[in-house]
């Protein structure tokens, strides 16, 4: 064995049973914190701020300072994963007798890997689609984008998608695809617009619908069923420094706004972030079945046409409750409906590790069966 180096001491500490118990205790505490936080923050924000983070941050009221106050689920999970893996390799006997425990531990480790895969790589979005309509993108309502679309070409549009995080950071945004620079003058996570009255101050916007609106900042919301109406005051500036106009952009203002410069027509909008698909879905039928003689829903289902020229796919698929369409690494679940049953909404989940939890459960169960089977066989053999 090698001498007692700092690395060895660290590895010994990381593989200790004491760390296992501390991590399990922290996980229980985090579960309680997250559950309580869901009341004011809503499920998604509470999970993001307590479980799917390495540190739980606290911001004192009226201050921009962020203080770490508790280890987040990411850190506890990573520590527990390292702890269990090291303990497995260092302490568990490598023998036929312990084979079942090895398999169970591997399953448990996979469960952690699966959660990390979900936290880091899962993308959740939605696709609202009307009967007869074809769509090749999904929308993420929790993330926004500043979409700058060059609509000059009569056949196709050129989209420059600027993520919300870049807009939120403010300052100047330049990109080779744009013949102008965007200067983000203000950004509000939530706001209210109303038609500007005679007593309202002049609008800061000089272009688009915002010129006749008055914007009022609101505190951000994150509760169930609530959505922020974000707004950004953006100035487009030509390369020679000339202002092309100042616009109020918001996901609450429906139609895109724009201008023409250098013979090219641009439209700008702050909208739900879009994820484009290499295939398209056309909604052929939507059914909202009810139990006979009542208004109690029995089943929701959508018949879609799946078209993927790249893979030569052109077929019908039925999406119903708990029966998603899985295609191209995405699962389309029947999530909602509207417009007198002419609009269907799919929840679209992309998770490269979606099979890991299933595999993990199989391995844990198999490992326990093997372990207790061997024990039983040993006990029966000994009793003879």
């Amino acid at each position, binding site marked *: 064995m*090698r001498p007692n180096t700092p690395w060895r001491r660290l*590895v010994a500490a990381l593989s200790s049973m004491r760390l296992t118990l501390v991590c399990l205790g922290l996980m229980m505490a985090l579960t309680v914190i997250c559950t309580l936080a869901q009341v004011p923050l809503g499920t998604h924000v509470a999970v993001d701020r307590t479980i799917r983070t390495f540190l739980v941050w606290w911001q004192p009221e009226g201050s921009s300072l962020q203080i770490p106050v508790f280890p987040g689920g990411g850190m506890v999970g*990573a520590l527990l994963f*390292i702890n269990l893996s*090291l303990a497995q*390799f*260092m302490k568990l006997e490598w023998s036929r007798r312990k084979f079942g425990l090895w398999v169970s531990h591997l399953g448990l480790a996979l469960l952690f890997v699966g959660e990390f895969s979900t936290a*880091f790589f899962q993308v959740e979005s*939605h696709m*609202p689609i*009307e009967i007869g*309509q074809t*769509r*090749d993108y999904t*929308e993420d*309502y929790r993330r926004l984008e500043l979409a700058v*679309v060059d609509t*000059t070409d*009569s*056949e*196709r*549009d*050129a*989209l*420059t*998608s600027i*993520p*919300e*995080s870049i807009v939120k950071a403010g300052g100047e945004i330049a*990109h080779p695809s744009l013949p102008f620079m965007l200067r983000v003058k203000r950004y509000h996570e*939530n706001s209210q*617009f*109303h038609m*500007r009255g005679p007593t309202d101050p002049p609008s800061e916007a*000089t272009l*688009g619908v915002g*010129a*006749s609106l008055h914007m009022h900042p609101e505190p951000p919301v994150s509760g169930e*069923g*609530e*959505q922020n*109406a974000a707004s950004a005051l953006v100035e487009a500036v030509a390369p020679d420094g000339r202002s*092309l*106009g100042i616009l109020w952009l*918001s*996901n*609450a*203002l*429906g139609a895109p706004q*724009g201008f*023409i*410069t*250098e*013979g090219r027509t641009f439209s700008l909008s702050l909208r739900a972030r879009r994820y*484009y698909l290499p295939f398209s879905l056309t909604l052929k039928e939507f059914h909202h079945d009810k139990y006979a003689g009542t208004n109690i829903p029995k089943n929701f289902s959508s018949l879609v046409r799946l078209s993927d020229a790249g893979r030569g796919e052109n077929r019908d698929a039925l999406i119903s409750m708990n029966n998603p369409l899985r295609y191209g690494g995405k699962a389309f679940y029947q*999530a*909602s409906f*509207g*417009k007198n049953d002419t609009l269907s*909404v799919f929840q679209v989940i992309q998770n490269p590790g979606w099979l890991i939890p299933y595999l993990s459960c199989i391995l844990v169960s198999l490992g326990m069966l093997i372990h207790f089977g061997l024990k039983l066989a040993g006990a029966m053999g000994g009793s003879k």
Partner: protein
Amino acid sequence: MSKWYADAVEIIFPLVLIIASSSCRRDSIEVRQVPKETASPMAMPPDGSMPSGMIDAPPPASGVSWTAPAGWKEEPGNGIRLATFVPPQDPGKSEATVVALPGEAGGELANVNRWRGQIGLAPIDAVVLTAARQGVKSRLGTVVVYDFTGEGTNRSRIVAGLIQVGGTTWYFKLMGDEKAVGKNKAAFIKLLEGLQKDAS
């Protein structure tokens, strides 16, 4: 613990930390070609509730009819647009639109400055507005017309007419490349002259 275990652990552990720390997602600007947008359903959250702060679209207006100039393609409206006309796309691109809004919709000066902004021109005041104002006679009365040309190498031009009918202001706008708008202006003015009460 055997020696190879200890060696493996000492190599793998730092590697796991490096991979974990570098696997954070970073947002970046993306550029792509996308199909032309068609009228899409209102983006709504999964529970069907509307976002707060939503501004209601004005009700569809009616009461004015027009005749599209020969060779112009008339397309159905989209959103608050009641109609879109596509003139021949030579010697450049241009498009004409019809929008109707209740009341004065912010006033004439605000709308003119909005149009000027669309082609990168600075706002003007009421005095310059009066000087820029022209009139075209139609069966509904005088249509107020403005004509502005942008700056830059490839200049854009806008010819816009507005008229109040009842409690609604109707906006007719021809906008596009300077040369294209110049060529199609006469046909556009003829469209304004032909405005009349919609019998339906």
